[in-house]
């Protein structure tokens, strides 16, 4: 079994140099971080604070989200400006589970109802909160909620052949509408405060270092698996069809592919991946609120993928880590400048590096290779 999966991974990465480098770095980080936090004593300068571990874990979640977007944008050519919505839905599903885990330890000490419901004078749990006390049910919803939304949305959008800018605008409207809806108290998701004050997950204290490290490792694992499954998809014939749809949709339809089905399933898969990223994100940051649906988040995500280089998967990871690191830095040093920096970055990348950082590297490597082959003489060429 493990031999088999090992073989599959080997063939997947055979022609994916960037992917091999990325997974190696990820593995190294996943080994080093727990040691730096749990083993190295706090007095040492090599010790890593729990805060940093969680911050890195957040970056990994964003990276997984970026992989999800790259799949649909870089390969399928669908620029979703609302992918944050799927991330947030996965996050809310996890948040609901964490909320129910609080039990009677809330401020109001109600045995069943979360604090915000007591505050609203609700007498009983709304039906859509049923089942969220079970972890398996929450896991199901983490995939199902974003997946179902993507399915319904994609079903209508792709069947009626909405493409290009129009599709982007609708996805943006979708996340905006969800944000407004989740802001409302009577939706039963905690209104603008969202869900917070989480205590533990599966009985493990969310504040403890070991839980944080475990969540970090889970994020790394999810990112690695998400990457490999995405790579499997784009390497398959399905991946080639999807790129064909991106480049010449009518042609792909003409030779017999049901283009709308292809778009739909890649979109749904991408949404589920985004939901998983959101679900891992929430226990680490300790809160989920409607601002996660903010259109700006989805746009930031697009910038991440553009900066890293779309259509490569690992480029999306690189972009997500770099842009979010920059965001962390800006928002602590010059918070008011961040949006301008983001906009400027997007313009610069679009003009100077249409293929992102990864594309820039590829071009430099290509040039170096050309120089080398020119030096070694053209004698071999016939």
């Amino acid at each position, binding site marked *: 079994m493990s031999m088999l999966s090992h073989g599959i991974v080997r063939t997947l990465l055979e022609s994916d140099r960037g992917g091999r480098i990325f997974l190696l770095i990820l593995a190294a980080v996943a080994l080093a971080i727990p040691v730096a936090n749990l083993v190295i004593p706090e007095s040492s300068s090599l010790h890593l604070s729990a805060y940093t571990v969680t911050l890195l874990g957040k970056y990994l979640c964003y990276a997984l989200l970026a992989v999800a977007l790259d799949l649909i944008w870089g390969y399928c050519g669908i620029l979703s400006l609302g992918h944050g919505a799927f991330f947030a839905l996965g996050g809310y599903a996890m948040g609901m589970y964490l909320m129910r885990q609080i039990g009677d330890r809330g401020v109001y000490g109600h045995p069943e109802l979360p604090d915000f419901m007591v505050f609203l004078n609700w007498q009983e749990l709304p039906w859509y909160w049923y089942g969220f006390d079970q972890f398996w049910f929450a896991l199901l919803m983490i995939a199902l909620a974003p997946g179902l939304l993507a399915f319904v949305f994609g079903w209508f959008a792709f069947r009626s052949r909405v493409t290009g800018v129009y599709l982007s605008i609708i996805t943006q409207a979708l996340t905006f509408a969800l944000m407004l809806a989740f802001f409302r108290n009577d939706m039963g998701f905690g209104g603008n405060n969202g869900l917070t004050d989480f205590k533990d997950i599966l009985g493990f204290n969310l504040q403890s270092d070991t839980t944080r490290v475990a969540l970090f490792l889970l994020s790394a694992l999810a990112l690695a698996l998400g990457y490999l499954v995405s790579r499997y998809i784009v390497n398959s*014939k399905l991946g080639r069809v999807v790129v064909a749809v991106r480049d010449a949709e009518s042609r792909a339809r003409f030779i017999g592919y049901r283009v709308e089905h292809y778009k739909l399933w890649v979109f749904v898969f991408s949404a589920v991946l985004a939901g998983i990223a959101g679900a891992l994100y929430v226990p680490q940051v300790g809160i989920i609120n409607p601002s996660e649906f903010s259109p700006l988040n989805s746009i930031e995500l697009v910038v991440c993928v553009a900066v890293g280089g779309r259509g490569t998967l690992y480029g999306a990871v690189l972009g997500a880590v770099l842009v979010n690191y920059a965001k962390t830095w800006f928002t602590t040093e010059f918070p008011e400048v961040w949006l301008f920096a983001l906009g400027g970055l997007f313009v610069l990348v679009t003009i100077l590096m249409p293929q992102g950082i990864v594309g820039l590297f590829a071009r430099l490597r290509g040039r170096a290779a050309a120089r080398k082959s020119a030096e070694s003489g053209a004698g071999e060429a016939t």
Partner: protein
Amino acid sequence: MSDGQDPMNAEGMAHTPPEGGVDTSHGPILYLENVSVSFDGFKALNELTLYVDDGELRCIIGPNGAGKTTMMDVITGKTRPDAGTVFFGQTLDLARLSEHEIASAGIWRKFQKPTIFLAHTVFENLELAMQADKGVWASLRACLSAEQRDRIDEVLALIGLIGQRGLRAQSLSHGQKQWLEIGMLLMQNPRLLLVDEPVAGMTHQEMDRTAELLTSLAGRHSVVVVEHDMDFVRSIARKVTVLHEGSVLAEGSMDQVQSDPRVIEVYLGA
């Protein structure tokens, strides 16, 4: 869809061929009889009658606006005739079939502008065009069989792109792109191939190669070529049909046609 050539505007993509094969027991594979098409009163096709034999390579020439492209539109179901009959073999009434059904019955068309998948390699282009289960799930699990590889290699050899198999389609020359597109059509095992102005913009060498390619297809496939380039049509040296104002003006070998006084008057003599 931007190229305005999307002939697939029907919703369903049922690629199930109509029951029964193509009956060519009487010789011709394509029958156009008294076909008329008018646009706002203007007759683009006027009582056109034309037969194409099974396995034949037929050239169609004619001045601009003679109705050549309209004729192809009628055969592929893009335009419906106002009058007359269009049959594929003895039994298939093309006027009653959707564009999809016509394609799955074995009539494939090459448009003037090559539409291939530029980011894919030559091999992958043919792989994508191959007859296979085109469902999402099947594509995810798809793995080329030895026969399928052989079939792709066979077509690669036919279109002369064996050496370019691993090359991205975007790096091909104009002529090579046209051949690749013909190769993609061949992957569908067409009975009848319609080719509209294949050599426009080609170098002389590429034209010769194209003539060779089309000639080699004859026999196994029936091919109808519309072309303006006289040297090219002559190099194919098959039966030529001259269209003029929507109907057949003359038919025969290139020499016969060229010495026909009516043809000289409306076309060649100009």
